[in-house]
C-alpha cells in the first residue's frame, strides 16, 4: 500500500457494470515525508473514502479489487484508507 494525495476527479458516465457507482480520483503518489513521488494515476474509490485534497492510502495490482464489496472489479488501484496524520 502507498500514500497518495487526491488532486483530481474523473467523470465517466459510461463504465463497465463492475465499476458502477464507484468514484474515480486522480492521485499523486507521495513519499513517506509527503513529497511528490512518481507520476499520477487513476484510483477507484468504491467506498467513497476520499475527496479532492485528501491524503489517502491506496492498494495496487489485483488486490485493488478486494476493496469492492464482491471483490470483483477491473481496477488497478483502490482507495482503502483516509489518512489523518502520518507521525
Amino acid at each position, binding site marked *: 500500500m502507498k500514500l497518495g494525495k487526491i488532486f483530481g476527479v474523473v467523470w465517466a458516465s459510461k463504465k463497465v457494470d463492475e465499476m458502477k457507482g464507484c468514484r*474515480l480520483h486522480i492521485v499523486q503518489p507521495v513519499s513517506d515525508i509527503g513529497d511528490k513521488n512518481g507520476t499520477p494515476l487513476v484510483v477507484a474509490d468504491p467506498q467513497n473514502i476520499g475527496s479532492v485534497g485528501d491524503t489517502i492510502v491506496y492498494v495496487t495490482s489485483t488486490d485493488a479489487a478486494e476493496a469492492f464489496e464482491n471483490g470483483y472489479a477491473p481496477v*488497478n488501484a483502490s482507495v482503502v484508507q483516509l489518512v489523518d496524520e502520518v507521525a
Partner: protein
Amino acid sequence: MIFAKVIGTVVSTQKDENLNGKKMLLCRETDHEGNPLSSYHVAVDAVQAGEGSFVLITYGSSARMTETTKDAPIDAVITAIIDDVQVEDNS
C-alpha cells in the same frame, strides 16, 4: 488505470477462440490532460468506445475482471469512457 485515446481498430480473423466477438482497439496512452505519451495498448473494448474516444484502460490481470473479458487471454481492457477530468493545482 491509465488514460488513453482510441486511435484505431485492430482486425483479425484468426485468433484465440476466447477472443471471438471482442472488439480490439489501438489506444495511445495519454496523461490526465489528454497529451499523448509514447506507449500504446491493444485493448478489448467493454464499453462500446469509438475512434477518438478519451478512455480509461485497466491493464494486467485485473483486466480480466469484467463480464466481457473473463477467462480470456487479455491484459488490457477499456473500462470507461471519460466525459471530463477536473484537477486542482498539483504542486
